[in-house]
């Protein structure tokens, strides 16, 4: 009976994948989309956060790949405005499927704005991780940190390798 379950979920997965890519086959247990979207013009951290740098303001959120692996977000905890964040230190948390996951900041700086819409609509992180699901806006204290982050192509490869390694 377990085999039938695997067979049907893989058949679903294969139907999805045959249009996108013939050679990329999915593991039986995840019926998620083939490729999580990765946007141009953003920088990415290995802990799956993105940064959009616009002059003196950097917007931070989590990537499509991250929200897909988290599941449906039911609660978001964000820092206060005027608090400071540091690179690779946790600044908030996201709760989904009974798991709270910490979010690490890809850059250091001062928090100038927080997305208050996420308190009432945490699902925005799932539906629009790069637009409406942004989490904090930061004034970077050390713009050179952005250079250490990955570009879109590097990040896509990083995700593929992470997913395939198991």
């Amino acid at each position, binding site marked *: 009976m377990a085999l039938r379950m695997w067979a049907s979920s893989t058949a679903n997965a294969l139907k999805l994948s045959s249009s996108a890519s013939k050679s990329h086959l999915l593991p039986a247990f995840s019926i998620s989309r083939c490729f999580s979207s990765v946007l141009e013009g953003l920088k990415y951290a290995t*802990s799956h956060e993105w940064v959009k740098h616009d002059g003196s303001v950097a917007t931070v959120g989590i990537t499509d790949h991250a929200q897909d692996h988290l599941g449906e977000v039911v609660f978001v905890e964000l820092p206060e405005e005027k608090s400071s964040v540091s690179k690779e230190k946790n600044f908030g948390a996201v709760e989904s499927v*009974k798991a709270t996951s910490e979010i*690490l900041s890809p850059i250091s700086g001062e928090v100038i704005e927080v997305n208050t819409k996420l308190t009432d609509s945490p699902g925005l992180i799932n539906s629009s991780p790069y637009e409406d699901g942004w989490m904090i806006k930061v004034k970077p204290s050390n713009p050179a940190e952005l250079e250490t982050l990955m570009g879109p192509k590097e990040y896509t490869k990083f995700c593929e390798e992470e997913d395939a390694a*198991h």
Partner: protein
Amino acid sequence: MVGFKNRFMLMEVYLDPEKDLLGEGTPVILTKLNLSEAIKDSILVNFGECGLASCLGSFHVAYVNPVTKLCIVRSSRDEHRRVWSAMTLVRSVGNCPVVFNLLDISGCIRACRDAALKCETEKFNQSGKGLSEEEIREMNRKMRTPRTLEVWKLGTVNYLKSLKLQDKLVSERKANRIPDTLLSLQHPPTYTLGKRRTDHNLLIPEAELKSIGAELHYTQRGGDITFHGPHQPILYPILSLRSIGFGARSYVEALERSMIEFSSLYGVKARAGNKCETGVWVGDRKIGAIGVRISSGITCHGLAFNIDPDMKYFEHIVPCGIADKEVTSLRRETDAQLPSEEVIHEQLVTCLAKVFSYDDVVVKEDPSAILNTLEDDD
């Protein structure tokens, strides 16, 4: 009793079989990803979607050494011949023509690993001069050590102490000073709340808790209010999600599967929860609860399974914030004779280890000594 019967196949990959290369100027670098893709494609072409689907659950490329061209592939015992034939029929990996040759099959990864080491040592001895320093270092790095789970059997532990212990172990795990660790314990009667602090789901005033012999604690884990107490085994896995390749959702799903596996040992058909009802259910009754925290990729908190707790304690809360569903226990769901609690804890641990594909489970000696040192830190 071995639950999942696997076969581990040690294969040698001949690249561009016209020539005989070892190390120098190879046309394609073998990785787990490209080997796995090539084999899966071959299964699909030769055995169809149904064939691929039945192999896929247990198929896994466990080890690849791009220098010696050896790889270890795992498959379930029932499907291994299919996977073996598919591998023999693989014509190319990437753009490079290849031929697979089976060297050894065994039922456990350790025997296969030993065979692999022997074969690699021979290869190395035969053409040792051909390998550069860099390649030798690469080879040593690739010798994968089996994945071990270290289990701490702690008996009944006060909740706050268990939190302190988990914090300590999470930092140790993050710094890679300890392997993946599992705490197996119970708590005295304790109500706990998650990060959302949903204390409206506690139906008696906090002041009365002492009179019923219970404590209340606020935590950073996900999930709503729940009760822990005697005869309710609790497992707190302190794992590195990155090293097991799980995200939050797949980790929680694996915890659910562990409890479902365990229930089936007693003939109880449990299922995972529906959307927003994470946990393990028998029909409409909740038998297992989950609440997890992930910090820098390391998990803490975990699962609780009702064997035979005092169900009256659940009447004082809206368990997990779900108002119209009951809570149940293994005692209520089966007439089977239940073994001792120690045996039950061990069975639960074994189910979790299987679901998470650990090669080895090691029981830590005298873990309560650590608990005593925590007390001193107060």
